[in-house]
């Protein structure tokens, strides 16, 4: 192992907290992960030393804030290997990134057209397309999955057709951890000229993301799932696509000139960034990604894979254990059920012992319904988690099960 977990843990102030008198074990990383001092300090520093509105000010504070803001954009562009920082639109999160494209596609989608998604989508990558289809008389088609939780590629092939105007799917499932073969699927879609949008919310902190290699048209993610702040996210889009799409919101920097009769819009990326931007958010997002870079995404994947395998083995030993999502290709997300015990009961007792997991449908209700289950308990790991924490969790889980038996 190339990483020093103790050192990493000491970067995260919240990890030393006690919950119900017990040491916090934070396994709810799929929902949001914790923030290192570097990111927290970045926000404080920004507001203590350089806070200003950007782009239009002639004074130094504004100049410096603008420079830092645009350097953050460059950092993000490099992080996902985009061609240009013009392709990086700052949004407020994955959900907004997806809604932006869904809105801008109103001019592109028509009656009888199809939008293709998959059974494993998060509501944020489902409902925007569903509502767009309602509005435009188009059809939402859904690619099924196998029992293991992999996309059914045979179905996918048969569902790709000239009618499909967009294929939108998750890089990584937030419920099952399945890593979809993004590059392969994108290539299939491109053969028919279908643009591809990837929901990278669960991937950005857990896998190498290279949009040039993937060759997707759009890629979306949130800062708060990548050691960064809440309320900040990214829409990556290929320039020729972004140039052709209509703006989403109006006001502020996205305007070039305006009279009461007409408005000319600014160029990329500003065309899609209305209102005062979240400068602190942009800096802190870049700082979160820098945190990943400093450890190295390869090292992170290796460590999290180790946790995944370690935990999966231990869980499998438990009587009545059912792991939902058993793809050969998955990240450190484990959803499970034990016998017919309700996930809520397990989550509540684990909480008493300081272990934070998520329970429920994880904003992927159709996927949960697909398995005919009431929800799952989900443990999802991040760079600061350890085998010791998993041992403790397994002990706590066994205690809970004994109480619930």
């Amino acid at each position: 192992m190339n990483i020093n977990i103790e050192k990493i843990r000491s970067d995260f102030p919240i990890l030393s907290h006690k919950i119900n008198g017990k040491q916090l074990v934070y396994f709810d990383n799929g929902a949001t992960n914790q923030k290192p001092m570097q990111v927290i300090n970045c926000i404080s520093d920004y507001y203590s030393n350089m806070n200003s509105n950007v782009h239009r000010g002639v004074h130094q504070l504004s100049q410096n804030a603008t420079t830092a803001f645009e350097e953050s954009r460059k950092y993000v562009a490099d992080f996902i290997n985009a061609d240009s920082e013009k392709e990086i639109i700052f949004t407020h999160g994955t959900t907004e990134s997806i809604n932006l494209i869904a809105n801008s596609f109103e001019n592109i989608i028509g009656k009888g057209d199809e939008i293709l998604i998959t059974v494993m989508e998060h509501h944020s990558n489902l409902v925007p397309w569903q509502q767009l289809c309602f509005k435009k008389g188009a059809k939402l088609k859904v690619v099924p999955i196998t029992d293991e939780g992999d996309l059914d590629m045979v179905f996918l092939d048969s569902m790709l057709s000239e009618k499909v105007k967009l294929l939108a799917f998750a890089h990584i499932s937030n419920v099952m951890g399945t890593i979809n073969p993004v590059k392969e699927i994108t290539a299939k879609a491109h053969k028919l000229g279908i643009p591809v949008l990837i929901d990278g919310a669960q991937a950005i902190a857990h896998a190498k993301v290279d949009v040039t290699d993937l060759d997707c048209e759009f890629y979306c993610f949130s800062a708060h799932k990548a050691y960064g702040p809440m309320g900040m996210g990214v829409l990556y889009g290929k320039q020729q696509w972004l140039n052709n799409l209509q703006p989403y919101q109006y006001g502020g920097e996205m305007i070039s000139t305006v009279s009461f009769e007409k408005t000319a819009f600014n160029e990329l990326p500003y065309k899609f960034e209305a209102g005062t931007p979240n400068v602190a958010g942009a800096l802190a997002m870049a700082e979160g990604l820098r945190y990943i870079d400093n450890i190295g995404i390869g090292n992170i994947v290796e460590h999290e894979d180790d946790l995944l395998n370690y935990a999966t083995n231990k869980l499998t030993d438990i009587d009545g254990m059912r792991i939902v999502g058993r793809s050969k290709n998955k990240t450190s997300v484990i959803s499970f059920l034990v016998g017919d015990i309700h996930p809520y009961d397990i989550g509540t007792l684990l909480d008493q012992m300081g272990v934070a997991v998520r329970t429920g449908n994880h904003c992927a209700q159709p996927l949960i319904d697909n398995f005919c289950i009431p929800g799952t308990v989900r443990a999802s790991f991040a760079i600061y988690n350890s085998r010791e924490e998993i041992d403790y969790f397994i002990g706590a889980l066994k205690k809970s099960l004994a109480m619930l038996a």
Partner: protein
Amino acid sequence: MTIKEKEDALVSEFGMFDEWMDKYSYIIELGKEMPLIDEKHKDPQHLISGCQSRVWLNAEIKDGKIQFTADSDAVITKGIISLLLKVVSNEEPKDIAGANFGFLEKIGLKDHLSPTRANGLVSMVKQIKLYAKAFQLKNMN
């Protein structure tokens, strides 16, 4: 016993537990003893919308007193419901309308009734009060 007395009794019962495990085990036990809602009432009308576990509640009036029955698919939720019902069941509508379940705080379960909790217990309490009010109005007519 009045509602107040029943609450006090529960508080002193729970006072015996030093360990959260004993407390929760007892809650789960209590859930098992709760008068269950008739299966035929487990329908959308009796379902309380909570985020994760499903909760059903029914109420009937007998000799001027309300008899509650309920169920949930999560046993801890069920246990806590049974605490609520222990206190209000077999009471007159007007007394139920005034109940505030303050005892939950004293036995360290208050957060289960917080409006942000994903178990639907807040809506459960609302529904209990609604039933009480409905029967009150009926009586007056």
